[in-house]
């Protein structure tokens, strides 16, 4: 070991050099992450499928009507796009839906109850997209 290798001055020098190197390297690394982020973001197409569906539903549902959403995850989306219409909670069988007072049911792709599959006599499909279906109760 060289004489004075462990002296406080040498330790300070070592620490300081390490810190400055870490900062410079860190900035370079972060710049690299940003380049990757920019590339990823700009090469990913911007799509809003659920938004498009709910905006079309907004145009179809009359003001003041109430509605039910089958997906608890997507109920916030519906509340935002359909405001100030009131969202009500209900089961998804015919009796529960008719008792809820709601006239409209929003069935999103992530939550399709068996009772709302396909076509039934007690509702009409007013809108159908890959993101969801808008049903109007007719019973």
């Amino acid at each position: 070991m060289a004489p004075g290798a462990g002296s406080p001055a040498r330790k300070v020098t070592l620490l300081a050099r390490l810190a400055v190197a870490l900062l410079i390297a860190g900035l370079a690394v972060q710049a690299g992450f940003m380049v990757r982020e920019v590339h990823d973001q700009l090469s990913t197409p911007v799509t809003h499928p659920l938004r498009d569906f709910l905006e079309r539903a907004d145009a179809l549902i009359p003001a003041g009507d109430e509605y039910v959403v089958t997906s608890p995850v997507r109920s916030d989306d519906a509340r935002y796009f359909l405001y100030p219409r009131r969202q009500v909670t209900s089961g998804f069988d015919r009796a529960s839906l008719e008792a809820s007072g709601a006239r409209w049911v929003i069935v999103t792709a992530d939550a399709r109850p068996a009772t709302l599959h396909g076509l039934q006599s007690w509702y009409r499909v007013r809108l159908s997209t890959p993101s969801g279906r808008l049903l109007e109760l007719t019973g």
Partner: protein
Amino acid sequence: MSDWLLAIATCLLLAWAGRPWARRVAGSAPGRWGLHGLSYLCGTAMVSLAMLGVAFVGLPVSRWTLAVAFLIVRATGSRPPALPERRPLPGRGGPAVALPMAAVVATLGFGMLQAFRLGGIDSIDFLKAWGLKGVAVLDDHSLDFSRLSGPHLFYPLEVSNVNGAVLLVLGHVNDSVLRLPAALFAVSLAAVMWWLLRLVMPPAPAAAAIALAVMTPEFTTLMTNGLADLVLASYVTVCVLGAYLWLLDGGTRYAALSGFAAGAAAWTKLEGTVACAAVLVAVLLVRRAWRTPGAGIWIAWFAVFIVPWQVFQRVHDIPANRSHFKTLYLHPLWIVDHVARTLAETAHWGLFWPIVLGLIALTTPLWWNTPARLLAAVTLPNLVLTLGAYVTHYRAGQADSVEATAHRLYMHIAPSLAVMAVMGATVALSALRERPPDPHPEPARCR
């Protein structure tokens, strides 16, 4: 196109209304860019607060009363005192400044580009809180949110009122343009950071600190996704840097800046109240006096933003916080493991956290006996508080929604920690330049 023009006009009006207030709270002349940035931060906070004032006196929050709110904010802040100049620290320009500043401009430019190209905002907290309450302002012209339900009604109103203001000017809902006022908080933060950091650092470290703060994927995401975390970060950072200057200065000059930003942070998000209160406690502890000069000004600004909303909630029976902070989950090992994994994951932050925490730890022996210790006193307690706060949410094995949101919940402390890290490196660089002669030179050096 006209929606974009109206949104741009609203943002300019917010900065116009806030300009006298920026001069009033700045403490020293902020320079051109610092003044622009601070004007926007002041304008958004004060106009959104004035909207609450409109609702408080029972008037509808409409386009006309919004115009009155703009005028009142502008008028009440006018005739600010002449600000004393405070010279920035000397230092050379060159590539050490130009390179990080170019990176800052590129990053913020990318964020702004995203604001214009991404379209409508679909992030969940925007849809259920920040955006929805803005839509409710447009539709109902009130702030009691009587037609809304859910656990978010107690959230402070800065962000949703700014959204509501833009929508009122538009006259209809177009949330694509709401990305613009959100993104401008990031630009304002960078401008204000440059002004404040130049008072305590040479230009190269100041530029490096801003670059480190903004160059993360999470930062650019939060510039445009309609959430409140970057807005909160803007105010918390100004509060922290203002408090640091307040301590360094020894008088009361920067207490108003720190206190204003603290109040605005609390008016933005619940975490702001706790984070900025911790900053005040740190100042009082450092000065070892409850009645330290400037504390009254600081607390008065804090109260200006907190008290009206608390009173309004009670007057209008807005339900208080029912779901957050109800239970403590004390699983320290699991929490430490989970937080460590979150900080080390690179998709959101790159290597920001290892770099920043590593720099701070590595340079501690160097800055411990320097004025940088004052900056540590106002930044590091919030690191512990923020990471520790998750005992209120984390359950071992079931992190629930916090799992998805933890990354953005660290945002409000990130810029000030970046500053602390660069301050450590700056002290290290000074130590290299001014180190005493080595008493045991190596033989090779003697030749």
